[in-house]
């Protein structure tokens, strides 16, 4: 179904570029140079800007080597196990570079509870490293010290591919996988610690989809890890229950960090910079894990202005570059204490699922299929199905904002209609912007730009104690109607831009939070 806001025609408006080509903005990246300096990876080639993003914040900040200067390539390391080894550990197997075949033999024939330790250097594979047993620990000597290189992969597979409970992966870099760098599926008690996923070509459409990708898991800890150059999400947790994501870094991915169809997630102290979209929370239509109780706090969400390089047609290709956070088709989400800087489309957008998929039928999940808990959620149901397009009980508070909204992504209105629409509303008709830092699409609400008390907040979306931010309710259905009419352009006169405290979105009477922290077993 066509998204409500999808501009229906190549309006004879200000758009010069209505085609499919993504015209990169040469001028967009005023980005501050705030790289935390941790991505000194040998695989993070210095050529990551690909010529489309001159002036991006990662200039000069890839603090390490330029091109794939792998530290070791030969197995001639003096001590391949400087940091961890099998010494004194039973049920433990260790491998050095050159023993790739032995490693593959071993992982295909594991005993439950085995610990696998890889030495320093670059291990090269033509197929995935697969693990299908329980209680496996898979450990290297550290990020960029132990490297698993899948550039020679002939099978179209993930890099490290796991199905197994009580799994821990720690201390390694995974590079150049055909599909996801690390995929862990259908597993309980998963730990991802100090793992880096990257692609040596820099940000490229042809890179694998996801960096770190636990999906359909229960009890997931992802910490102190990094993801670069993924053509979908760098860091991802999806369709999972009980999740902690902390102290990670995501740069130069299409989506930096995604929490998708996930229940009870605690996401904090992550650094999300120079992606197309920063930190995103959403449900997909038809997925049986109904997202809820997501806590996003104390993250750095900076200059996520990289031109979207996702393969066209994909869901993430619709993300306007310059998006800090959106929370879409989600409920019971708390976004607090985060720093948003220089996200050129907007900082935080609160969106109904209908904004991207206007068919309510597409959001129908048969009750018998529902996974996890829906207790206490306010979602429409009936006829044996529950609908999860609704976004409600959203509490945004205590964040700081600067440099937002000065150049929304109008590069491709077909692929990214929201960016194009924001460009029209805020910058056409003589407007000078910027786009407000905080946006609510207003789907399902009464929106009256002129009479404050007419505005409704049925979905309990609220914003308070925000520093440096402005707020607007967009009323997407109305804006789409104006465009469809073709008589005039929408402008900020059509949206609700209240003065503080932004009633009725000011949290008075809000009961949807706080979201409790997640405690893993």
């Amino acid at each position, binding site marked *: 179904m066509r998204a409500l806001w999808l501009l229906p025609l190549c309006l004879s408006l200000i758009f010069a570029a209505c085609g499919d080509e993504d015209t990169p903005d040469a001028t967009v990246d005023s980005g501050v140079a705030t790289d935390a300096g941790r991505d000194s990876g040998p695989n993070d080639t210095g050529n990551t800007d690909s010529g489309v993003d001159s002036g991006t914040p990662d200039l000069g900040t890839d603090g390490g080597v330029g091109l794939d200067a792998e530290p070791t390539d030969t197995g001639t390391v003096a001590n391949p196990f400087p940091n961890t080894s099998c010494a004194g550990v039973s049920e433990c197997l260790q491998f050095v570079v050159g023993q790739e075949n032995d490693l593959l033999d071993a992982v295909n024939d594991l005993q439950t509870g085995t610990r696998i330790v890889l030495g320093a250097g670059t291990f090269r594979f033509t197929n995935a490293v697969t693990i299908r047993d329980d209680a496996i620990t898979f450990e290297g000597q550290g990020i960029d010290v132990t490297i698993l290189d899948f550039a020679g*992969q002939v099978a*179209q597979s993930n890099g490290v591919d796991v199905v197994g409970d009580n799994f821990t992966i720690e201390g390694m870099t995974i590079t150049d996988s055909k599909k996801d760098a690390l995929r862990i599926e259908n597993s309980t008690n998963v730990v991802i610690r100090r793992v880096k996923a990257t692609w040596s070509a820099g940000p490229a459409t042809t890179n694998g989809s996801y960096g770190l990708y636990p*999906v359909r898991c229960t009890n997931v800890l992802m910490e102190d890890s990094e993801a670069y150059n993924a053509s979908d999400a760098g860091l991802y947790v999806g369709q999972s229950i009980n999740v902690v994501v902390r102290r990670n870094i995501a740069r130069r991915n299409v989506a930096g960090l995604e929490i998708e169809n996930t229940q009870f997630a605690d996401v904090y102290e992550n650094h999300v910079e120079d992606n197309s979209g920063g930190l995103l929370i959403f449900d*997909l239509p038809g*997925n049986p894990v109904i997202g809820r109780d997501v806590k996003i706090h104390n993250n750095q969400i900076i200059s996520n202005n990289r031109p979207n390089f996702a393969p066209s047609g994909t869901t993430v290709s619709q993300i306007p570059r310059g998006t800090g956070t959106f929370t879409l088709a989600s409920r019971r989400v708390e976004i607090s204490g985060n720093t948003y800087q220089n996200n050129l489309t907007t900082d935080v957008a609160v969106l109904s699922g209908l904004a991207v998929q206007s068919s309510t039928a597409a959001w129908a999940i048969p009750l018998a299929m529902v996974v996890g808990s829906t207790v206490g959620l306010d979602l429409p149901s009936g006829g044996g199905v529950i609908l999860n397009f609704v976004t409600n009980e959203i509490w945004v508070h205590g964040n700081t904002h600067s440099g937002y909204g000065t150049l929304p992504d109008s590069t491709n209105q077909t692929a990214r209609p929201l960016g194009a629409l924001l460009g029209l509303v805020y910058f056409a008709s003589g407007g000078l912007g910027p786009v407000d830092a905080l946006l609510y699409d207003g789907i399902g609400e009464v929106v009256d730009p002129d009479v404050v008390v007419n505005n409704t907040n049925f979905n309990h979306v609220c914003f308070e104690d925000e520093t440096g931010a402005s707020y607007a309710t967009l009323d997407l259905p109305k804006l789409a109607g104006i465009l469809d009419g073709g008589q005039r352009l929408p402008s900020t006169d059509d949206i609700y831009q209240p003065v503080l405290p932004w009633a009725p979105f000011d949290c008075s009477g809000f009961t949807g939070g706080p979201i409790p922290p997640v405690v893993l077993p």
Partner: protein
Amino acid sequence: MKSVCWLTAALCLAACSEAQPSRDSGGPGDLGAAADGGANDLGQSDQGVDAGEPDADLPDLGPADTGVLPWGEVVVDINLPRPPALLSEYRLVRLENGVLRYNDRVVPYELAAPLFSDYAIKERAIWVPPGTQVNYQDLEAFDFPIGSAIIKSFSFAPDLRQPEVGRRVIETRVLVKYADGWHALPYLWRPDGSDADYHVRGHVEMVDFIDPFGAPRRATYLVPQKNQCTSCHELSDGQGGTFTTIIGPKARYLNRLELGPGPAINQLERWVGLGILAGLPALDQVPSSAALTTYGSTVGWTAPELERAARDYLDINCAHCHNPQAVQGVTSQLYLNVDNTDEFRLGYCKEPGSAGSGAGGRRYDIVPGHPDDSIVTYRIESERAGEMMPLLGRSLADTFGTRVVRGWIQSLPSRNCD
């Protein structure tokens, strides 16, 4: 009860069998019949390689061909701590002058619709412990007794229009039913054909050949890792666990006619005759697949014929992951199992979960009436790593199968999904 069936089959045989040795005789005729009457589906011919020499020296000639071979009794010992290092230890199968030969009571079988594997010639057989039987199931895979083995071997020939010439077997996979379920055990043949070694880490090999259409092809043939077997063979048990399943041995795919020196006989009835299958209902109660070979034309097929063929093709090729019980695949919410009647989850106007570059710039899994706008066709026609479906098991596109699916989507009443 079966006379009509036999008669139909016999008529069809008379009409078609010799006439078109190298091309499938044309879908429509094959599709309607409960039993697949096509003579050229016998033996290896499912692989589309039955170029005019049907079955002359194949081992699947029924009881007459299963005489005791001088190599002792089959040994499938589920109590061994580790699988046998050599395939020969099972005494199930061996190579004689380049031809796979099975031991006594090892029963070759064929599927009406096979999984496409880069045009590899696949030879399949089962063995059940003496005195035990397979239990018939209508829709699920047949229930095999513990201790059973399924043997599947993959071969290539330089010119698949003459598949018996220069054939080389690459691997044999033995699926053994343990007390805790099926285990998939891969064996890689030695170049001299003397035996095959247990080989769990996988193997990649470039294979050049002429395909059944006469086109030169180069496959990047993948012998999967042992763990990768589960990517096709694993299902969720609905209680948080998983189990390994078998894909082909289902009623709808085994329900086919086979020819031998004597009268044609339905494969399932042959199994009953051999005493290895229990519970077979009347044949008209048994589901049946369209007969799908990897070659042929869909010209002149009606929409219902295309639909039946395409749904069976998608079922055998995709539904091991794309079904609600699968472990991998459910994240997509695209269910291609033949009994799925939910149009949305069959892909109609459905956006993909995470197709990545596999979307090919297209927005919906299936746009009825528009194969060129459908992701499903893009992914099965692509030969680029990272885009292809199925994920494992092919590096080449299946000329005939893609034709069937494309034809089906084209035949659907047109919809505008936007």
